[in-house]
């Protein structure tokens, strides 16, 4: 039962990253590359009717985490207190940026909310990458000092940074060179992903330029991925242990690299949805490969005193998990139906949807 909910949770998180990820990417493109009013309009139109439903995947995943793995929810949400609250603030700014921009026709007003949308999207991409870095690196569970736990074995608290910015320091921080590296991977990946979505959903004059940007950024991404793999042993001495034991898991890295290398052909794609498909594959493969490498751990311990949190020692009780399957299956069928309706109504190019115009 734990394994079922683990797969559900990871799938929901992956869906969240793929869906809201294109919103973040669109925000980054909007911030750096959209100059004309027409291009900006095209970008907000392309994500306007979707971003809210996309964000619900995060809330729903949070709900499933709470219900199926309450100990992990309690431990990680209190331990990563500051970055989580900041993510909330950024989500609020992102939403207000998108929703308020069109409410008043005034250059200054529009500029403020354009920047709010763009900057918060960029920071959200960075923060989520850093968050992933923190989870795979692990934390000082039980806040061990000199070999003695100062808190219950599954609680911890991390400041934003320590003075050394090292993932191997005794006193860890949220931001260190390893988590920043993953933050950069996230920013670059989601920029590519967002650009693919814009190409897919609009006839914007940016599209040709975006293909070039994707092509160039893809080299940066490849370099970052290689660097990450080379330094991975710093946080996990045997990163391929799980893969060597269960070779079918290599499917996930294969998906990742299919997505990555597929994108090098971005300039010659005939079907415009293809680029989005490849960046989605990269995201899905990257996330699943990462969690597969630390499985069954969900939050590793960096000390020898307290054991890592695994999906088995953080799960809720059997009855609740079983009864949850019934309503969850019904809910998933409904959600799938909503998504089909939503994407059918807003299918094709969206340049002229008129999102947020009042």
């Amino acid at each position, binding site marked *: 039962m734990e394994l079922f909910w683990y797969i559900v949770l990871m799938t929901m998180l992956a869906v969240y990253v793929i869906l809201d990820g294109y919103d973040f990417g669109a925000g980054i493109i909007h911030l750096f590359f959209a100059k004309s009013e027409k291009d900006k309009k095209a970008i907000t139109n392309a994500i306007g009717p979707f971003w809210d439903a996309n964000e619900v995947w995060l809330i729903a995943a949070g709900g499933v985490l709470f219900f199926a793995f309450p100990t992990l929810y309690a431990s990680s949400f*209190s331990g990563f207190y500051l970055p989580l609250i900041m993510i909330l603030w950024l989500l609020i700014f992102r939403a207000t940026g998108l929703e308020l921009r069109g409410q008043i026709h005034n250059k200054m007003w529009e500029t403020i909310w354009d920047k709010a949308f763009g900057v918060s999207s960029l920071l959200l991409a960075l923060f989520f990458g850093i968050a992933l870095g923190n989870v795979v690196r692990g934390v000082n569970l039980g806040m061990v000092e000199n070999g003695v736990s100062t808190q219950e074995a599954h609680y911890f608290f991390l400041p934003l940074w320590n003075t050394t910015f090292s993932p191997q320091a005794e006193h860890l921080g949220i931001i260190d060179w390893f988590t920043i590296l993953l933050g950069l991977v996230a920013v670059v990946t989601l920029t590519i992903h967002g650009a693919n979505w814009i190409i897919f959903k609009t006839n914007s004059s940016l599209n040709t330029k975006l293909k070039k940007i994707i092509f160039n950024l893809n080299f940066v991404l490849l370099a970052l991925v290689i660097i990450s793999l080379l330094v991975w042993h710093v946080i996990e001495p045997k990163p391929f242990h799980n893969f060597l034991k269960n070779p079918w898991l290599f499917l996930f890295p294969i998906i990742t690299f299919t997505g990555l290398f597929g994108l090098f052909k971005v300039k010659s794609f005939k079907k415009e949805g293809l680029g989005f498909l490849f960046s989605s594959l990269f995201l899905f493969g990257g996330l699943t490969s990462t969690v597969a490498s630390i499985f069954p751990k969900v939050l590793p311990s960096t000390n020898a005193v307290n054991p890592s949190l695994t999906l088995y020692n953080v799960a809720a009780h059997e009855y609740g998990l079983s009864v949850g399957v019934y309503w969850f299956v019904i809910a998933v069928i409904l959600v799938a139906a909503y998504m089909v309706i939503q994407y059918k109504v807003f299918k094709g190019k969206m340049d002229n949807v008129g999102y947020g115009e009042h």
Partner: protein
Amino acid sequence: MEDMLFYDRMQFAFTITFHYLFPQLTMGLSLMIVYFKWKFLRTHVEKYNDAAKFWMRIFALNFAMGVVTGIPMEFQFGTNWAKFSELTGGIIGQTLAMEGMFSFFLESSFLGLFLFGEKLLGHKLHFVTGFLVFLGSWASGFLIIATHSWMQHPVGYEILENGKFVLNNFGALFSNVWLWPSYLHNQAASIVTSSFVVAAIGAFYILNNKHNEFGKLFVKTGVVFGLISSLIVAFPTGDMAAKNVVKHQPVTFAAMEGIFETEKGGSEIVLIGQPNMLEKKLDNKIAVPNILSFLTYQSWDAEIKGLNEFDKKDYPTNVPGLYYAYHIMVGLGTIFIGLMFFAVVQLFRKKLYTTKWILWSLLFMLPFPYIANTTGWYTAELGRQPWLVYNLLRTADGASPTVSSGNTLFTLLGFIGLYLLLGMLFLILVGKIINKGPQTINA
């Protein structure tokens, strides 16, 4: 440790109070928009469709505010109440996860279609999307109140040796005696808010002599919905909710009513008075003898337990706060019924739109249903203190062990600043929509 708990509580109180200003309007308003749209489908009179679209605009802003201030609520269970989440997540996580899966997806998928899809979908399907948004918001309220009810009156659980609460009866969460009275009471109160808002904007138009046609429609719809919903808030739902408190939380009831000592021969109902915690009595009291006993037990001389009969450590943490919250709610609820009653009488006499004092009263009443809803929730929440899970888990034992007061104060200040900004922007934008009026805005 003490101040850690204080800031955790302050942050939750501040963020939930601000958050609930928005859903209380959207839940009731979605029903009224669906009504306008339905009326249009039946009569094909254009003004009903214009009314639906006008309120949709205001709904959309409120909804967005509700969403962005709602996400911090779900996060805070984990960030600030980690111990509580760890111990009870297997149960309340169930209803909260259901809210995400059943309600948020429904609302967010169809809101966009409802706001932008009228031409795309045609009127009938547009009505359906409106109805689905209404359904989603009411489902959300239901699951939140199911969670709330479990904390007030825990059912269907067992406690393991390690202190964890585990679910052993899923159905019990929804047949909880606390749930249905609270839910209906809350939803009726939400319609009270939307009725007063709709009526107030209508009165504003009539008194300013602009958009008169819509002014009349809004006042009429507002007062009819308003009278029915204010009555339901008091009876039967408020009555049933209060009887639950008497039965299951007698010490809370004593504090709400301001009864310091058990009275022989029946309890009086206190209309006005200030709780004096030093001398354990009410100062400057105005009260009517025996009414409380009658309302509670339908017997003039029934005995109601005073605070003196309970252990002091089980008193609600803030007795005066609870007492005021409850009395403000009840007092306002009574005034709402009175005003709406006169308004409906004038409506039947066809004099409503010219009765100035009622129009002015409707306009000035605009903030008060918000205050009544808020104090109603304060009654429920302060009344549950000092417990998170009534009689089983104390608030002091539920906070996050590792989040220091300095960090919580930092984020609390951030929330205060951010929400003040959001609140101002919201008022400016809603003001703009109201000022433009239904015809201009839909043109």
